[in-house]
């Protein structure tokens, strides 16, 4: 029997060595594409696209204003960057989470000592996001680890992330492997999606409240003014908003930013196919500018040039 187990051990060792070689090859072209095809991981070849935001935030470009926020904010503002060199527009998406917005602002302030204003533009539902098993790992956690910013988060947040995703998936070498190898990304994300559970917040704004407060304190420390605005909201959510507004009253944010829910601009359902992002003719620049003026006034975001 020892002979069988010894042979079995050798067999398994050889096989796993072969697997390790294949995984290593899956991080370098041309094997990356080939192995992705064999393992049906083509959909996992792209990254989250968040790293460039942090790279830009770290560039000392002399800008004095920062706009951050979710994908609706991105749709509204990102194309205006060229006309507004004094403002860094680093809008991302909701999956980066408020924790990611905080880290982005933190990096910006480190390399922009003359900054005066930070504008955070988020949809009310984005403020209720939690660490989920579908999006947050790839957009938020992986980004924080790869940009070496994760250490700036609170200990309780780190512990929450470890509970949800597993401590091993927050190690830099593992995250790098997942980033570079589509097959590892597929296995990891599928594992998390199948075997883990979302973090259940104690209140709808638990995580957001904590990190908006941190962001406010950070801005205060750097003599920067923090502004929080809602993204425009589809009429589809008209009935949901009052309940959220009521919950909002129990947060720290409501003291510092009491007018958040009052500033919401509601738009007709037909303007959006997914009830979040603008579609059809309302994706045109002119329409978006009109929406910005209606939502945030003529001097939106400290006088952003819209043309």
């Amino acid at each position, binding site marked *: 029997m020892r002979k069988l187990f010894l042979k079995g051990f050798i*067999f398994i060792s050889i*096989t796993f060595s072969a697997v390790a070689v294949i995984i290593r090859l899956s991080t370098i072209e041309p094997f990356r594409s080939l192995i992705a095809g064999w*393992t049906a991981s083509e959909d996992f070849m792209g990254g989250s696209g968040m790293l460039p935001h942090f790279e830009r935030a770290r560039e000392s470009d002399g800008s004095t204003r920062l706009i951050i926020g979710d994908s609706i904010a991105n749709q509204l503002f990102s194309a205006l960057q060229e006309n507004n060199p004094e403002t860094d527009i680093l809008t991302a998406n909701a999956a980066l989470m408020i924790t990611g917005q905080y880290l982005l602002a933190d990096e910006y302030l480190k390399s922009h000592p003359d900054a005066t204003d930070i504008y955070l533009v988020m949809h009310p539902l984005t403020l209720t996001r939690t660490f989920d098993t579908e999006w947050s790992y790839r957009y938020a956690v992986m980004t924080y680890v790869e940009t070496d910013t994760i250490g700036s988060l609170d200990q309780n947040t780190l512990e929450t992330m470890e509970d949800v995703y597993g401590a091993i998936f927050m190690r830099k070498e593992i995250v790098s492997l997942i980033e570079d190898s589509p097959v590892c990304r597929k*296995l990891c994300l*599928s594992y998390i999606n*199948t075997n883990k559970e979302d973090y259940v917040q104690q209140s709808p704004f638990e995580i957001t409240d904590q990190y908006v407060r941190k962001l406010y304190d950070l801005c205060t420390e750097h003599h920067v003014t923090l502004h929080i605005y809602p993204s425009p909201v589809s009429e589809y959510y008209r009935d949901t908003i009052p309940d959220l507004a009521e919950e909002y009253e129990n947060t720290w944010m409501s003291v510092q930013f009491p007018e958040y829910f009052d500033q919401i601009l509601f738009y007709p359902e037909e303007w959006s196919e997914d009830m979040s992002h603008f579609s059809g003719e309302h994706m045109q620049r002119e329409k978006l500018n009109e929406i910005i003026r209606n939502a945030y006034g003529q001097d939106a975001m400290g006088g952003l040039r819209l043309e």
Partner: protein
Amino acid sequence: MCAMSFNSILYILFLPIVIWIHFTLPRRYQYIWLFAASLLFYLSNDIRYVFGLSFCIATTYFAAILIEKTKLFNRKIILGLCISVNVFALILFRLLWKGSAFAPLGISFYALQAMGYVIDVFRGKTVSEKNVIRYAVYVAFFPTVISGPIQRSTVLLPQLRNGRSFDYGKARIGLYHLLSGYLLKIVIADQLAGKVSFAYNNPDTLPGAALLWATFLYAIQIYCDFAGYSALAIGSAEMLGFDMDANFRQPYFAVSIKDFWGRWHISLSSWLRDYVYIPLGGSRKGKLRTQFNLMVTFLVSGLWHGGGNYIVWGILHGAYNIAGNIRRQLSLKRNPPVMKSAAGLMKDSGDRPDRKGRLNQGRYYTVVSRIFHMAVTFVLVDFAWLFFRADSFEHALNILKRILFDFHFKEMTFYGSYLLGGTRAELVCILFCVIAVFLVDVLHEKNKSIEKMMKDKVPIVIRWTVYIILTLLLILVMIRNYGQAATTFIYETF
């Protein structure tokens, strides 16, 4: 607790540990360890299953002991009571409470195994097992408890009583069976399952030709799925030193429906033959009664599978067998049997000569004739599989209607619906694997063992290279499927 089945990662860790401890223990205590391992394996699926299993073990254990101790008339009453309560339990869980959380996994298999044991004791073929733990292992033996093969008491109980010594050759064969089982299930059956489901879930959107293609693929799927499961069960048992009979013998090489049932799910068909067909009278009570007994046996088979559409499937096979019998009798009248030289002619495989030395009542097949009979048999079997796979009788009729009246072969190829929701590359890979399985079956049909050929004729380096490549292929396919809902073994649902 994490549910364990043959295709779970947990099982790959569980089995070596069980084997190691099994052979470390003295032979007289091995059954105790197997009892614990079998309970852990079975109850990891749902602890409530313990009720159904305990009921079956308790009733058949005591019934067998009482049967040995009492007089003839009372023995029949005890046997009748025991069979009745267990059949009632089967009907309750499999038909009336189908799909409920209380329906114990594998009851269709272990209940037959236990009832077979009691009948064997009644018939004097075996002595009753006094050790309740050992008997419990017989019923709940983890390689076979969920989906068979159904073990005869005369085969498994003596091995449990004697204990097993480690046999390196047997363990190697067991490993080969395990690898084969996983390849059949994961590389072929699971890939085909998606395509067949695509067709059967959307019959109105596909031409009849595509549905016919899907039905053909289902025949391959169910064979690879079930033969794969059996290979895993047999391989696991062999690793523990147990001998098990084969459950499949190249079924699609059958030249008749009768031949098919000597090759497909052999443990169930032989159980039905010995415990249903023969007690009904078999072929001893005249031609009309023989056909009646056949039909009843196949009806029971349909009910055992779960009633509904399975009854239609059973009736079809009953009708096939009856028609086959009638055809054979007419053929015998026309061509009385003679003994011929086998030069240049192929025998009907699996036949044993009768007392006068005739094979299959003198039937020999040329290669062309054999292929023709295999094709006809396959078509008949696959027609019945249509009903087996469909969700309902109406669903089956709808698919059949589209195959017959909405064929559109050119449309299928032009629009690519033959891909059944997948890519051409995937289909080519699967078909390549299916051809490989076919070639292996050809060798098995010629009584050549692949494992023995590999061991005797292939250098160890090449042999290991082949095994490692096959294992990597398995891992590759598992990665491809990871993240999708896992497919259970088809016969786990029975």
